[in-house]
C-alpha cells in the first residue's frame, strides 16, 4: 500500500514537532525515517499509524484519505520501541491477539488461528517459544515476537519505532539483516524510525532525513551519502571533515588538488576516505602533519593537524586501508601532503 502525506503539521504546546511534511512512499519500499532525537520522526510514524492526530494535513493510504480513521481501521502493523508485548499472555496468545479480537464474522476458527500463529512463529524462527511469557525472552526474541504479532493481522503497512534501539550491538547487526530479508520475502510497505545513520543505510531502500520537524532530504542510501543536499545531511550521514574556508585557504587547497578562487564564507565537507595522504615532495612546506592514528579493523583513521592561516590548528581525519598505511610507513609528527579526491560545497 502506498503512503502519501500532505502538509502534515503537529505542535506540542509551543514546540513544532512537525512542520508541513509532504512525503510520498510507493508500495513495497522499506523506508527509514532518520534524524536526531526530537526531530519528530516518531511523531510522524505515530501520525501515519493513527496513534497521534496531526494538527493539519492529510494521511492517505493507497490514495484514500484515512486522516480521521482510528488506528484499527488503517490496516497497519505497529512495532513499538519497547515491543509492548502483553506481559500477562504467552507468546502464542500475544500473536493470536489480533486474530481473536476480530468480530465473530471475520474471526478465523481456532484451528486456523493455531495454524497461522505457528506459521508466523516459524517465520520469525521462534516456534519453540510459543508457551513462554514475554519476560522469559531476550530482547532480540521479544523484538521478533512483536513483529510476528504485528504481521498476524496481515497489515498493508508495517511501522517500526526504533526497532533495534534497545538491543545489544551484535543482536542488532543480525536483526537488521534479517529484517531486510523479511521485507524482501513479504514485500509489505514498511517504515522504520531510527537515529542511527548506519542502520538506515544498511536496512532501508529509501531514507528520509528529518531535522527540526522538516524533511531535509529524501533518497536512496547512496544518493544521501554521495550527494547530500545540505550541511546538516552531510554532517549527519557518516563522518565528514568540515572546513570553514577563509581567504588564505586557496593556497593549500590548490596544493590538495582543488582550485577555488574566493573560498571566503564557503564550507567544504570532505569524507575521510576522500582524502588521500601522501609523503610530501617538499616536507618543509607541507602544512599538515600526522598527529595520531586509530586502528579501525580493515582501515586506519589518521588524525592530521593542519596549521591554520590565523595560527589555529585544524584537525583533519583521513581514512585509508591498512596495507596502504603500512606501505607509507609514517610516524607520529611526520609531515604529509593531502590530496582531496572529492568535496561537497555549501554556502
Amino acid at each position: 500500500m502506498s503512503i502519501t502525506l500532505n502538509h502534515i503539521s503537529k505542535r506540542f504546546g509551543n514546540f513544532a514537532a512537525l512542520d508541513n511534511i509532504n512525503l510520498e512512499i510507493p508500495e513495497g519500499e522499506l523506508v527509514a525515517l532518520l534524524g536526531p532525537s526530537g526531530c519528530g520522526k516518531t511523531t510522524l510514524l505515530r501520525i501515519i499509524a493513527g496513534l497521534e492526530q496531526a494538527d493539519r494535513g492529510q494521511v492517505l493510504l493507497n490514495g484514500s484519505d484515512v486522516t480521521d480513521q482510528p488506528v484499527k481501521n488503517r490496516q497497519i502493523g505497529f512495532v513499538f520501541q519497547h515491543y509492548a508485548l502483553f506481559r500477562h499472555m504467552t507468546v502464542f496468545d500475544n500473536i493470536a491477539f489480533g486474530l481473536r479480537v476480530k468480530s465473530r464474522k471475520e474471526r478465523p476458527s481456532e484451528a486456523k488461528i493455531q495454524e497461522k500463529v505457528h506459521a508466523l512463529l516459524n517465520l520469525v524462527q521462534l516456534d519453540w517459544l510459543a508457551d513462554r511469557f514475554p519476560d522469559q525472552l531476550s530482547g532480540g526474541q521479544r523484538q521478533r515476537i512483536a513483529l510476528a504479532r504485528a504481521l498476524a493481522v496481515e497489515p498493508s503497512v508495517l511501522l517500526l519505532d526504533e526497532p533495534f534501539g534497545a538491543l545489544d550491538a551484535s543482536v542488532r547487526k543480525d536483526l537488521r539483516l534479517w529484517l531486510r530479508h523479511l521485507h524482501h520475502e513479504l514485500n509489505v510497505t514498511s517504515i522504520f524510525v531510527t537515529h542511527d545513520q548506519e542502520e538506515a543505510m544498511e536496512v532501508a531502500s529509501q531514507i528520509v532525513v528529518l531535522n527540526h520537524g522538516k524533511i531535509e532530504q529524501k533518497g536512496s542510501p547512496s544518493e544521501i551519502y554521495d550527494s547530500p543536499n545540505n550541511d546538516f545531511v552531510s554532517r549527519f550521514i557518516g563522518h565528514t571533515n568540515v572546513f570553514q574556508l577563509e581567504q588564505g585557504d586557496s593556497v593549500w587547497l590548490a596544493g590538495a588538488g582543488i582550485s577555488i578562487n574566493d573560498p571566503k564564507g564557503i564550507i567544504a565537507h570532505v569524507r575521510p576516505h576522500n582524502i588521500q595522504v601522501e609523503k610530501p615532495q617538499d616536507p618543509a612546506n607541507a602544512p599538515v602533519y600526522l598527529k595520531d592514528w586509530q586502528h579501525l579493523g580493515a582501515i586506519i583513521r589518521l588524525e592530521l593537524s593542519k596549521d591554520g592561516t590565523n595560527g589555529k590548528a585544524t584537525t583533519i581525519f583521513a581514512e585509508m586501508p591498512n596495507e596502504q598505511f603500512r606501505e607509507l610507513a609514517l610516524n607520529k609528527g611526520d609531515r604529509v601532503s593531502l590530496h582531496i579526491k572529492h568535496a561537497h560545497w555549501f554556502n
Partner: protein
Amino acid sequence: MNTVTATHAYQPKPIALNDAGWVRFGLIGTTLTIIGLFLILPLATVLIEAFSKGWTAYSDSLTHPDTLAAIRLTLLTAAVTVPLTTFFGICAAWAIARFEFRGKSLLITLIDLPFSVSPVIAGLIYVLVFGAQGWLGPWLSEYDLKIIFAVPGIILATLFVTFPFVARELIPLMQEMGHEEEEAALSLGASGWQTFFKVTLPNIKWGLLYGVLLCNARAMGEFGAVSVVSGHIRGLTNTLPLHVEITYNEYDFVGSFASASLLAGLAVVTLIVKTYLEWRQKQDRKAA
C-alpha cells in the same frame, strides 16, 4: 531485571549496617511489646468478653433481630458502595493516567479530600445538604424522600469516605504501566472495550483487588460519618459498628463484643487477603 534482583537478594548486608546485638533485640522487643499491648491484647479481650457468658449467649446475641438487621445493613452498604467506588476509581485513574488536561493536579487533590477530612465532617455535610433543615430538605420532604436518618444517607456517607481507595491504588499503577500495550492492542484491531478487558484489566487486577479490599474493609467498618447521618434507629439504620456502640452503652457487653468480634474477624480476613494480594503484585512486578 530478574537477574539483578536475584543477585541483589544474595548480597550480604554491609558490615557497617550490622548493629550490635542489644540494639537489634531491643528494637525487636519494643516493637513486639507495643504490638502485643495495643493490638493483640485488645483483640483477645474482644473474644474473651464475647464468650464470657458462654457460646449460647454469644450466638444468641448474634442472632438477635437487631444484630441481624445491623449485619444486613452493613453488607448492603458495602454491596452498594464498593462497586460504585470501584467504577469511579477505574474512571478516575484512567483519566489521570492516560490524558493530559487542565486541572489534573486539582482533580488528584480532590480525590484525596476524603482522606484529609474528618469522617464526622463528611457526615455533617450530608446532614446540612439533605437534612430536614438542609438546603434540599424542603424539596426532599415534599416528595417524601428520606436520605438523612435513612439507608441512602448511610450509603452516601460511606461513599464519601471510601471514595479515594480504588483510585489511589490504581493511579500510580496505571501511570507506571504506560499505554504502549493498550496502543498495541488498538493497532491490532481491538476495540476500546476489548483493550480494557483483555489488556488493561489483567495488568491492574491485583492492584484493583487490593483497592477493593481496603475499600470494603472501610465501608463495613466506618463509624464516624455513618454515625452522624444514621440516627441510630435500631433494626433500621444501625450498621454493625454503630450496633457495637449502642449495645455497649446499654451495658450489653456480650452483645457488644459479639458484634465487635465479627468486625475483628473481618479485619483478620482482610489482613490475610491483603498480604496475599501484595505478594501477587510483587510477583507480577518482578515478571514485568
